């Protein structure tokens, strides 16, 4: 089913139309501008909380303007994901997230029509050279000291295998150039409203030892920290001499002197190529 729909999508792209041809699961409203407008409002009400006003990602949810999406290819798959959510992620099933009420089938198709209308086709030739980006990522740019891609690299920062599929090029560039502007989201805990940010933390223990790292989790009484050597510290707040959290990311700010625009494009191309797998 997935392959057939993907094939249909490719055909549709060739024909320059959003009308898909496979089975009755296809979007009955595909390409309808009026439905896309209604879908925009439905999107604002039900989706934009996480995916952002223009569907370009809002810090929590992936950018949906990418033609190639992380979890779905066809409209039918998108319909399934909106209806049933994605287990193990913050994506809830329709009507269960406590923020919005349930959408009708028609409203879901409207939203899909809207998302399709917002899609930005990837340029035919990538801006960067993925192979060189890979060398940089695991080599001179030091990304892999903290970030893991496809099982290789460090654990201190967010895992980036899927980031090329879920974020725009601009978002990736921005988070390298200005890592503190919007902290990445870490732990996804079903019982919390939103996952926790990758906050930097500095604590001084009772015996005077300073630990710097990122919070893995925290409540009013305890904190779980990973330091830059990937050591996990389990601490009771009441025993600490000091506890200081900061929204200054532990990631260094890569300016153009540290990483040229061209090299950064190569790294983005590498991440996009991995994400597309």
């Amino acid at each position, binding site marked *: 089913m997935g392959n057939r729909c993907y094939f249909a999508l490719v055909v549709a792209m060739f024909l320059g139309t959003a009308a898909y041809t496979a089975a009755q699961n296809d979007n009955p409203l595909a390409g309808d501008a009026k439905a896309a407008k209604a879908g*925009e*409002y*439905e999107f*604002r*009400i*039900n989706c*934009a*909380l996480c995916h952002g*006003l223009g569907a370009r990602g*809002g*810090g929590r949810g992936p950018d949906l303007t990418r033609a190639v999406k992380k979890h779905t290819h066809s409209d039918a798959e998108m319909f399934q994901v909106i209806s049933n959510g994605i287990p193990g992620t913050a994506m809830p099933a329709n*009507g*269960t997230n*406590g*923020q*919005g*009420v*349930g*959408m*009708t089938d028609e*409203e879901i198709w409207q939203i899909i029509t809207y998302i399709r209308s917002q899609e930005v086709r990837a340029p035919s030739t990538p801006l960067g050279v993925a192979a060189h980006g890979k060398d940089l990522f695991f080599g001179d740019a030091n990304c892999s000291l903290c970030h893991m891609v496809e099982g290789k690299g460090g654990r201190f920062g967010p895992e980036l295998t899927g980031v090329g599929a879920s974020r725009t090029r601009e978002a990736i560039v921005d988070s390298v150039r200005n890592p503190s502007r919007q902290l990445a989201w870490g732990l996804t805990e079903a*019982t*919390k*409203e939103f996952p926790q*940010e990758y906050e930097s933390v500095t604590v001084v223990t009772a015996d005077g030892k300073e630990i710097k790292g990122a919070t893995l989790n*925290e*409540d*009013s*009484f305890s904190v779980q920290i990973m330091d830059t050597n990937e050591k996990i510290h389990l601490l009771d707040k009441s025993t600490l001499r000091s506890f200081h959290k900061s*929204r200054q990311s532990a990631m260094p700010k890569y300016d153009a002197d540290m990483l040229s625009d061209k090299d950064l494009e190569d790294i983005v191309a590498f991440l996009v190529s991995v994400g597309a797998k």
Partner: protein
Amino acid sequence: MTEEWKSGHFRAASNDRFNKAFRPGVPGLKPLYFLARLRGAEAPLFHRVARAFAIATLGAMIYGIGVVSHAQVTFERLVNAAKEPQNWLTYSGDYSGKRFSKLDQINLGNVHSLVARWVYQTAATGKLETTPLVVDGIMYATAQDDRAFALDARTGRPIWMYQRQIPADIRPCCGRVNRGLAILGDKVFLGTLDAHVIALDAKTGAVVWDVTAADYRTGHSFTVAPLAVNNLIVIGISGGEYGVRGFIDAYDADTGKRKWRFYTVPGPGEPGHETWEGDSWKVGGAPAWNTGTYDPATNQIFWPTGNPSPSNRGEGRAGDNLYSNSLLAINADTGKLNWYFQFTRHDEHDWDATQVPVIIDASGKKLIAQANRNGFFYLLDRETGKLISATAYGKQTWSDTRDAEGRPIANKNASPTLEGHTVCPGALGTTNFMSPTYDPVTEWFYVTARDQCDTFSTAPQPYEAGHAFYGSAYFPSEEAEPYFGFLKAIDPATGEVKEKFQHTSPTWSGVLSTAGGLVFSGDAEGNFIAFQDKTLRPLWHFQMGGAVYAAPMAFAVDGKEYVAIAAGSAIYAFGLP
């Protein structure tokens, strides 16, 4: 819903337990078995009574079981609920809504040694918002998807279970939740997600009556714990997200016959109807989804109402939109309105005023207080409904001015826009449905609060029966700092925040105060926390493994005090070791 509970009324657990207990061969149970065999309809009445008494007494002697009095819960007992602090007879503990317990066995001196006494797993998923009732050793509570159950309050062992058969196409706006039961006589009362009111036999869980209040397919539902007053079961509808016309109903506790209905959106010819533009009143919202309070001295119910519909878009419903976001004083016998006070006129930010209105008598004044979702703490004269004071108790940017009565009114630029406009508090409010508490010892009002701002953006939506009807969307402001939750202690006399505790993240837990000098609340990280009432310093906590969306309560059985709260999908009871 699991298959196990699909057959509705469920007693297997209690039957199994009964059978096991009376089976010979279980050590220590033979005396009971012997006596049980003697039960028989053919025996003379005197013998049967004597045997029943012997069983009960022997059971009590051998197993330390308290001899439980199964006296009926009369209206008089509800009026005097504060005089039996071992029981928790209404949603907020008593009619005043104080959520204060006179029990002081658990106190400042020993709270550090508090332990979990039992946990009851409801095995349901979603948010558990129930406040249990306890009557003479038996706990009655609800879970998601309209499940109700009775437990042995000493052990958490189930006595009966009721599972409502809910249609697949119900419209719960904000989770398949339920906040609890009312009890009167020998029945408990449940409002359901498909907008029925039902009475269950308190001893068996069997349905006694079941009435339809409204059509669930047009967005009506019940999530509220009903309030039993006199011989009436008072309950308010949910559905402000679907453009229902809100109402508060009262049903005869014996028969289920509806005795009165008060529409919270006045119809043609009724006072207040002129506050709605055109036909907007027909889909005006103003639901009544949280439990009100009751003043026996004046026989008045104080019931709060929610947002006008659509919640975030004022266009098309010009006017004050009475009686949305109001406190209503209603004659309990007739359902007639005595007075109203509207907290937020023509609301465009989803600031339901459905917070529990707390009855306070202080310095000879008859007062009623509410910490409102719009960020202000209101103190009213409960005889007249006149505003005494309104004081911000959290971050707010929507109101810089007051009207002639002193009521905060919205700034001109506070309305949502197409591009989005940031306003504090956000749509979830400074507080929400979580119950506050008033401690008559400290004379402080404690409430869960959050400082969060949202960007409100319009999204015009036509009304369609049974479909979402918001008219706008909201998001955490992108520029906003991380937002926090608090437990705040307010002096009602001045509205001043006297103390606060900052949670790691905002919590949906309610608050309980006790005569033990303690305030109890929970957090989003799953902790149940005991605070010193005057300092809000945490003295004890327990990690329950699931976020809290419910309010704590206290009770006692066999002279032992317990504090209970729902978290995750379970109910926890704590006591001294």
